[in-house]
């Protein structure tokens, strides 16, 4: 496991990099349900997400972590319940200020630079950074003209991160982005996450890596069977989880 | 940069290819609906350059079976009809699709077969008699069965031989439903007797060891006729140009040119237009 000290060795921030908290926050979720057929996959969730924190979502497989994030990002429609971002409905305008990185990155069959350009061209007036700056942040400066699909696993995920951050989103959802990466690549991703966080992007991060959760998390949401069992500051969660399921999960026991 | 130039080169090649050798229907041209035997034997390659040199008219030949040629002409898809089924041709004129029919030339039909000659018809002159023997021997016979001039003649001969083909079809009587060449290919392939016009046979290159078994019957006479498609039925017909072609074909010069065409020293078509008939 990587030491906390290593993560501090991240790229230096420009002066005053931490920006104004986003107008999209807080995010309010009320009575959120998602059903597939008769099966209730997300059951009656109430949740508030506030600015300026890295929120980690933990929980065993099938607990509904990915579904929750997809609902929050507006990728799928809830069966019932309401989601609002800074008092605004979850519509296209809100969604355009969010970004998401998936476990296995979907890269366009183009060059590394073209993958970034595609996103920059999508939303007019979002060219806050140049392609070079964005690639530099992800440490992909010398790969700009390479085909994106020929990158290594770690590089691919870094590119996906860079692309997600290209438009300076207010919210960044991460769905186990380091699940299949080696420690060095994982560290690189975590550095980018910290950088984005420092720039004022709200991070909502699904992971199974408890070390990673400890390193990055300010707050932890623990999910089980489609419900949120616990939402507490990271330190409190790791020191004294209140639910038996969370205790079992942290202890590496099987949670049923 | 490199990619752009490659792309440009590609487009240039494509455009060149598309415009390259782009023939269009010449202004002074006619379409002749004709039979395969005249084309396959090479007659048109001999005739048309002479005519073009004299008149500048481009003659475009669509070579299909006589039945289809007549159908196409009835759909006004031709200016001149040059086929060999007199009864059908006369009917074509009678119902108003043709202006007038003129005799043009003739040759004859023959029956070819394998050297083993299973029906023992070799050397026979009587066509109907030979067919009767073929039927009696249940020897394979390949028929075009495509409503062509040759097929119509063949059907008449079977009738004269009073052979009922209904039960024979698919047994020893094989209906190919194809052109003369394809039927000869099939016949040679399966060792069947085939009735063909002599011009096609002489120019046909896949004879194998096949031989002419039956010839010389006056019933095997093969008359070709030429008709101008009627502009009253088909306003698009190029009347003057079409008539010019017909006039030349039946003229002394045209008739001589037809008679001059030889393949392997053998004359394929014998001109027999009546003087002053057009």
């Amino acid at each position, binding site marked *: 496991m990587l030491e906390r000290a290593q993560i501090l060795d991240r790229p230096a921030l420009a002066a005053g990099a931490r920006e104004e908290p986003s107008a999209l926050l807080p995010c309010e979720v009320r009575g959120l349900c998602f059903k597939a057929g008769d099966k209730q996959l997300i059951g009656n969730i109430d949740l508030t997400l506030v600015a300026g924190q890295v929120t980690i979502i933990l929980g065993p497989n099938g607990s509904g972590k990915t579904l929750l994030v997809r609902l929050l990002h507006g990728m799928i429609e809830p069966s019932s319940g309401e989601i609002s971002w800074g008092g605004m409905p979850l519509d296209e305008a809100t969604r355009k200020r969010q970004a998401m990185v*998936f476990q296995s990155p979907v890269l366009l*069959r183009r*060059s590394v630079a*073209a993958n970034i350009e595609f996103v920059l061209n999508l939303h007019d007036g979002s060219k806050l950074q140049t392609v070079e700056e964005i690639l530099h942040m992800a440490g992909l400066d010398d790969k700009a003209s390479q085909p994106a699909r020929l990158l290594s696993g770690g590089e691919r995920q870094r590119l996906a991160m860079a692309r997600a951050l290209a438009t300076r989103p207010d919210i960044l959802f991460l769905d186990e982005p380091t699940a299949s990466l080696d420690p060095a690549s994982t560290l690189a991703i975590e550095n980018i996450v910290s950088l984005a966080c420092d720039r004022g992007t709200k991070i909502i991060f699904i992971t199974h890596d408890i070390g990673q959760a400890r390193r990055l998390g300010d707050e932890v949401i623990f999910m089980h069977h489609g419900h949120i069992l616990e939402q507490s500051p990271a330190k409190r969660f790791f020191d004294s989880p209140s639910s038996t399921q969370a205790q079992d999960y942290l202890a590496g026991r099987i949670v049923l | 940069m490199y990619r752009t130039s490659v792309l440009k080169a590609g487009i240039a090649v494509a455009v060149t*290819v598309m415009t390259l050798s782009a*023939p269009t*229907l010449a202004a002074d041209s006619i379409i002749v609906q004709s039979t395969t035997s005249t084309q396959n034997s090479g007659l048109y390659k001999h005739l048309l350059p002479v005519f073009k040199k004299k008149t500048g008219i481009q003659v475009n030949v669509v070579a299909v079976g006589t039945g289809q040629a007549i159908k196409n002409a009835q759909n*006004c898809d031709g200016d001149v009809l040059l086929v060999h089924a007199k009864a059908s041709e006369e009917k074509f004129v009678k119902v108003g699709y043709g202006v007038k029919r003129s005799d043009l030339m003739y040759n004859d039909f023959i029956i070819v077969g394998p050297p083993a000659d299973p029906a023992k018809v070799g050397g026979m002159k009587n066509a109907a008699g030979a067919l009767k023997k073929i039927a009696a021997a249940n020897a394979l016979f390949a028929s075009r069965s495509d409503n062509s001039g040759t097929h119509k003649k063949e059907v008449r001969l079977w009738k004269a031989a009073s052979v009922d083909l209904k039960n024979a079809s698919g047994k020893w009587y094989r209906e190919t439903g194809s052109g003369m060449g394809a039927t000869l290919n099939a016949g040679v392939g399966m060792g069947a007797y085939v009735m063909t016009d002599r011009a096609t046979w002489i120019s046909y290159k896949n004879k194998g060891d096949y031989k002419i078994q039956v010839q010389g019957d006056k019933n095997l006479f093969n008359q070709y006729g030429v008709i101008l498609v009627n502009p009253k039925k088909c306003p698009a017909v190029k009347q003057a140009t079409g008539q010019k072609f017909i006039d030349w074909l039946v003229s002394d010069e045209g008739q001589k040119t037809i008679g001059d065409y030889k393949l392997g020293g053998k004359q394929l078509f014998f001109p027999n237009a009546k003087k002053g008939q057009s």
Partner: protein
Amino acid sequence: MQNFAEAFTLAFDLMLSADDDLLEIIGLSLRVSLMAMAISTLIGLPIGAVIGMSRFRGRGATIILLNALMGLPPVVVGLCVYLMLSRAGPMGWMGLLYTPTAMIIAQSILITPIIAALSRQVIEDLHNEYAEQFRSLCVPPGSAIAALLWDARYGLLTVALAGFGRAVAEVGAVIIVGGNIEHLTRVMTTAIALETSKGDLALALALGIVLLSIALLVNAAVMGLRMTATRFSYA
């Protein structure tokens, strides 16, 4: 067997001699089939793209129909086009029968379903891959189609080549609507049919070998273009 040996020698001689008549026939074959390919791509590609990336009622049935139409018999297409373009037909006034244009029309009808059905598959596969990311990025439909077409371009090029291959090898339709008229509508396949009917099997085979060589050249040229593009740019 002797025919084969003779055919190869003859094919070689034919290609070396660059006989005028042969060049004319090859030129027309390429012109007709490339045009048909271009037209079919213009029509079939958007159809394939739309079906590939949208969900609508009757989509399954549409795909089954499209896939079935890939097996359109050339002779039937030829016959239908003949009936349309014949002087006695509804479009007879245009005087297109027995012209290269008629052949292009027939081949376009024949291969448009092939291009539509195959590009539908190519686009759908890529769409399935991109859909989630595009949804996350709020990519508008127009940009999504453009991105899919561009990123699938090499797959689609292969689709277009499949259409070209079918068109250039097809005889049933062009012989009916073109009439196999010498110096006007005679293409490789109809020339092969003619030589076969004249019993000159070796020459017919030789022409077949020439046709195959041309198809090989066209495919190699496209592949070369693709490889250069890949090497110098994007995969």
